């Protein structure tokens, strides 16, 4: 298990070097996006409409932060932590096409993401679940917010991060998934404990 410090724009060749279990800290641009943002991006792409952000080489964080508004109308981050990533599985290929190189979340994703990680050279990272106050220390500032009308959690928050992490490689570009491996082994143990 190696430790890496990476900065955006993330390069495909760097992502392809990572193995499951490696620990990574990311600096630079991180966009939050969850269910509604993915749905909206898909709609805009289908209609050939422009997106509010360039996702090439960026990190996308499955997260809905708690933000507080300053008197001048700008925002400050209170806390931020990962949401359950499997909900975004239907968009695995779209995320690869957008040029996203790092997907951050919790709980892992499924087969479509394994394939998209191989095809487009992006990596899925596990953040420590429920650790929103600690993770917020890795965010320097909120640059801006898009689609706030979808609600605070569902909006796309543009964050500037400094050594955001630790993040564990949960799914790499070589077709490996910690989650799939653990599940396979666990199901075998269940057969031994309580046969079907």
């Amino acid at each position, binding site marked *: 298990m190696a430790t890496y410090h990476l900065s955006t724009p993330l390069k495909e060749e760097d992502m392809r070097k990572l193995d499951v279990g490696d620990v990574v800290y990311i600096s630079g641009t991180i966009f939050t996006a969850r269910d509604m943002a993915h749905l909206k991006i898909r709609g805009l792409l289908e209609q050939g409409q422009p997106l509010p952000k360039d996702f090439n080489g960026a990190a996308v964080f499955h997260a809905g932060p708690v933000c507080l508004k300053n008197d001048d109308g700008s925002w400050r981050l209170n806390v931020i932590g990962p949401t359950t990533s499997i909900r975004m599985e239907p968009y695995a290929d779209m995320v690869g096409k957008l040029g996203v190189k790092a997907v951050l979340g919790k709980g892992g994703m499924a087969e479509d993401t394994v394939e998209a990680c191989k095809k487009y050279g992006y990596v899925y990272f596990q953040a420590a679940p429920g650790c929103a*106050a*600690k993770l917020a220390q890795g965010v320097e500032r909120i640059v801006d917010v898009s689609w706030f009308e979808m609600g*605070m959690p569902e909006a796309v928050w543009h964050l500037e991060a400094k050594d955001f992490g630790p993040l564990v490689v949960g799914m790499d570009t070589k077709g490996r998934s910690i989650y799939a491996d653990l599940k396979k082994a666990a199901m075998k143990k269940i057969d031994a404990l309580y046969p079907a």
Partner: protein
Amino acid sequence: MNPHEQLIRTSIHDAVIRAVTEISADVKGLLEDALSRETNETAKSMLTSMLENLSIAKQADKAVCQSPGYPTTWLSYGEGNCPNYAAEVVMDALAEATKKGYLRPSIVDPLTRHNPGNNTGKGVPNIEYQYHPGQSYVDFIISFKGCGAELGNAMRIFTTATLKLDKDFEGLKRFVLETAVNAGGKPCPPFGIGIGIGGQMDIAGKLSREAISTRKWNDVNPDPMLARLEDELRDNINSLGLGAAGTGGDTVCLAVKINTAATHTAIAPVCINFHCWVARRAGIRIYDDGRVENLL
């Protein structure tokens, strides 16, 4: 009318704020135990982050977790002491906690997804009122349960055959373990599992939430058969190797809690309800003579 209205209002308000700013001491103790036993390096790092996060949140007066989850409240009362203003107090406290950044505005319409921004809406806050004749106190428990955990939940209507009644409930045990594996890292492990057994589907669901949200995670079930089942399930789930965060390790499950109710002779409804490690809840008992004590 309860003579201690102002005391009850203040106590309920303070309990809601306490629930969203810290996690239960019993759960924190179990996390510390899990870290002291852990042999997997990634899991050690995850558990260390979780405990650090609690200190950072406390020092900085911030929420422990960005997701406030979904609040459920249990309120039991006796003759003449029902605080019928409880919903109003809870709503005020939710609004205050939202404004201070302890709670992200996260409650939406189930279909339109409209977010009014104040963590309330149709049916929220959800209060389960229970009238117990002769009870000379008011019990108030509020629990904010995260919703990644909900994505792992499962329900099945068993029969005596599918329970494997004749084989020490092996059918039920397999269902619980398979559900835990399918949930994996989704419910923010190390998780707790509430299991409701009995009634019909609705009763089993309520029992499952009550089990994991209103009982201490280190208590011992007064029913010896259920106590044995809870321990066996927890230990065998942990033996599967899923670990904290679901990325491998020795402890994925801090507790299994089973609550039961009688059911019909044809069925055994079972509902499995996950709770993340961030056990934000508080419980208080307010006696009719004005004494207040903490339950959770």
